[in-house]
C-alpha cells in the first residue's frame, strides 16, 4: 500500500525519511524473503531443472504429457473438477456469508464457529468422516431408504459425487470468508439510498449489493479454484479410479512409477495453470484488499 503512493518528488528531509523507511521495510521482509528463497524458490528451480532432465532429452517429459490422451484427460478432469467445485462453493457461500452479516450476538458466534471450525480439523479426519457418512450402510443411505427415496442403497462413495461433496466441504470456508468480508464493507446507507430512489429489493440486490460484493466473490472463487486444482487427499480417498486428478498423477509418478522428471513437468504445468488463473483474477480484483478482514 505504501508503495502505491503517488506523491510528487519529496524534499531532502522527506527523502531521507523515506529511505529510512525503505531500509526498515527491507529489514522486516528479509527473514521471510530468505526463508522463501532457500526453502521455496531454490527447490522450485531444482524442480524445473529436474523436469528438463529426462534421459530422452530436455523436453521429453513435457512432450510425453502433452501427447498422451490419458494425461491430457487427467488435466482436463482436474480443471473441470475445480470449476464445478468452485461454482458450487461460491453459490453456497454467498447466502451463508449474507447470513453471517445478518445474525448478531450468540448466533453470530455459533455461525462464525461453524465456518471456522473445519479449519482446525485435519482434512484427513474430515475426509474419513465423509467415507463413514456415505458408505453403503452409512447414515445417508439409511436415511434415504427410511424415507423411501430409494429401495437399494445408493453408490455414494468412490465416484464423482463423493469427490465433489468432500471438496466442497473442505473448501467452502475459503469462499465464505472473503465474501463475508466484502459484504461487511458495503455501506448500509447505499442500500437505503437505492430503496429511497424507488428500487425494489431485487433491484437493490442486483444493481448495488451484488456489484459491490463481486470483488469478494471473485477472490473467494479464486481461492477455492486454486486450492481445488492442487487437491490430493480428498479426491484420492473419496474418488474412484476414474477420478484421477493432476495431484494424484504426480503422486503416482513419484511413488509408483519413479519417473521424477515427469512428476516435475506435471507440477510445472499445474503451477502454470495456477499462475494463469491468478493473473486473470488480478485483472478484476485486488485480491490483497479482500483478504484483509476488518
Amino acid at each position, binding site marked *: 500500500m505504501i508503495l502505491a503512493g503517488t506523491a510528487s518528488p519529496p524534499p531532502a528531509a522527506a527523502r531521507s525519511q523515506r529511505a529510512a523507511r525503505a531500509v526498515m521495510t527491507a529489514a522486516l521482509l528479509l527473514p521471510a524473503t530468505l526463508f522463501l528463497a532457500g526453502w521455496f524458490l531454490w527447490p522450485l528451480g531444482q524442480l524445473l531443472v529436474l523436469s528438463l532432465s529426462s534421459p530422452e532429452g530436455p523436453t521429453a517429459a513435457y512432450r510425453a504429457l502433452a501427447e498422451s490422451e490419458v494425461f491430457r484427460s487427467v488435466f482436463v478432469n482436474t480443471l473441470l473438477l475445480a470449476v464445478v467445485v468452485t461454482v458450487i462453493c461460491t453459490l453456497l457461500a454467498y447466502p451463508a456469508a449474507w447470513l453471517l452479516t445478518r445474525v448478531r450476538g450468540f448466533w453470530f458466534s455459533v455461525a462464525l464457529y461453524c465456518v471456522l471450525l473445519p479449519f482446525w480439523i485435519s482434512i484427513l479426519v474430515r475426509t474419513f468422516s465423509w467415507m463413514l457418512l456415505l458408505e453403503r450402510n452409512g447414515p445417508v443411505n439409511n436415511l434415504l431408504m427410511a424415507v423411501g427415496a430409494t429401495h437399494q442403497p445408493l453408490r455414494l462413495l468412490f465416484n464423482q459425487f463423493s469427490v465433489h461433496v468432500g471438496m466442497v466441504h473442505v473448501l467452502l470456508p475459503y469462499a465464505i470468508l472473503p465474501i463475508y468480508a466484502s459484504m461487511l464493507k458495503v*455501506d448500509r*446507507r*447505499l442500500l*437505503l*439510498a*437505492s*430503496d*429511497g*430512489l*424507488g*428500487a*425494489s429489493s431485487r*433491484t437493490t440486490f442486483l*444493481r*448495488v449489493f451484488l*456489484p*459491490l460484493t463481486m470483488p469478494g466473490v471473485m477472490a473467494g472463487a479464486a481461492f477455492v479454484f486454486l486450492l481445488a486444482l492442487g487437491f490430493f487427499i480428498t479426491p484420492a480417498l473419496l474418488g474412484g479410479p476414474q477420478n484421477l486428478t493432476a495431484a494424484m498423477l504426480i503422486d503416482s509418478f513419484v511413488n509408483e512409477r519413479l519417473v521424477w522428471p515427469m512428476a516435475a513437468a506435471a507440477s510445472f504445468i499445474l503451477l502454470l495453470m495456477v499462475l494463469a488463473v491468478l493473473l486473470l483474477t488480478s485483472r478484476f480484483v485486488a485480491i490483497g484488499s479482500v483478504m484483509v478482514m476488518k
Partner: protein
Amino acid sequence: MTMSAGMHGVSFRQVSKSYGAVRALRPLDLEIEPGEFLTLLGPSGSGKTTLLNIAAGFLDPDGGQVVIGSRDVTALPPRARNVGMVFQNYALFPHLDVFENVAYGLRVRRVADAELRARVDTALGLVQLGDFGARAINQLSGGQQQRVALARAMVIEPDLLLMDEPLGALDRQLRKHVQLEIRRLHNEKPRTTIYVTHDQEEALVMSDRVAIMRDGRIEQIGTPHELYDRPRNAYSASFLGESNLLPVHIDEVRDDRASFTVDGPEALRSQSQGDDLPGPGPALLLARPEAVRPAADGEPGLEAVVEETVYLGELVATRLRMSTGQTVWMRRMNAPPHEVGARIRITWDPAKARLLPEKKPS
C-alpha cells in the same frame, strides 16, 4: 412527471418513536406547506434525524401518521414514497459513475433512454456538474459529491426532498457557498423540503421556517426572523443567534407591560412590553448583543468591566463582565472601542429586549 411534483404539503400527525427506554420522538405534530423549505434544528439526540428517517420510510414510527399530499405513506416502504434523500455522507454508489448515480432513480422507474439522458443532463447542469457525467465518484471532491447527491435526489422529481446534514463534511468556505446554492435551486424551483442541521447559520440562511427541536419534540417553530426576534424561551434564544440572558425578577405585570428588577447589587428597575410576558417571579431578560449599549450620562445602567474587544470590520464586539460575574457581549456599529479593563455602565434597548420564563414550560 406531474406539474405538481414537489408541491405537496406534508403532515406529521402524532408521530412518535422510542428506542427501548429512550424516547426519540414524543408524539409530534408538524405541518409543512407545499413548496416550503423547513429546517429541523437541534443538537444531536433531539430527534431531528429520527423524524427525517420516518419521513423517508427508513424508520417505522411507533405511532402516528405521515401524510404527503393526500397520501398516507406511513405504511409504505421508502421505494413507494417518491421521496428524495440527500444523506449526510452522500451515500453515492461507488461502482457507478456520476451519470449513472444520478440516473439510478430514473432507470429504476424505467424512464425511456432519451428522456432519461435529458433529465440527468439537466439535473447535472443545475448543480453545475454538466461535464462530470463520466467521472468516477472517488475522483470528486466532497463538494462535488454533495452536488451529485443533490442531483440524484432531485432528478426523480420527488414529492418531498429530505436532506440530512448534507453540508456537515464540507469545510466552512464551501459550506457557505453550497448553502446559497441550495437556496438558489429552491428558489428556482420550489419543492417541499425538510432539511436537518445542528448549524444555526445554515438554518437561518436557507429556511422558510425553522423548527427548533429538543428532547424529541418541537420547542418552537417559525420563520428565522420570528425565532430570532421572539424566542419563546431561553433554549430557543440561545440556539438561534447569540444571546445575553440576565436573571431578573418580574415585580408586576399589567396588560402588556411588565416591570422587573435586574438581579445584582444595582437592582436596576426597568419595564418591558410584549404580548406573551411571563408572570411575576424569577425570569430571564434576553438582550441580543446588538441591543446592548453603553448607558448615557445620568442614565441608569449596570456596572461592567471591559474584558475583550473584537473587531469584526465595522462591527465591534465587546466582552463585558458584570458585577454579578456574568459575561455579556455587546455589539456596536462604528463605535469607538473601549479600553480593556475600563469600567463602564451598560443598558439595553427595551424595544429589542424580551422577557422569557426562567425555565422552559413543561
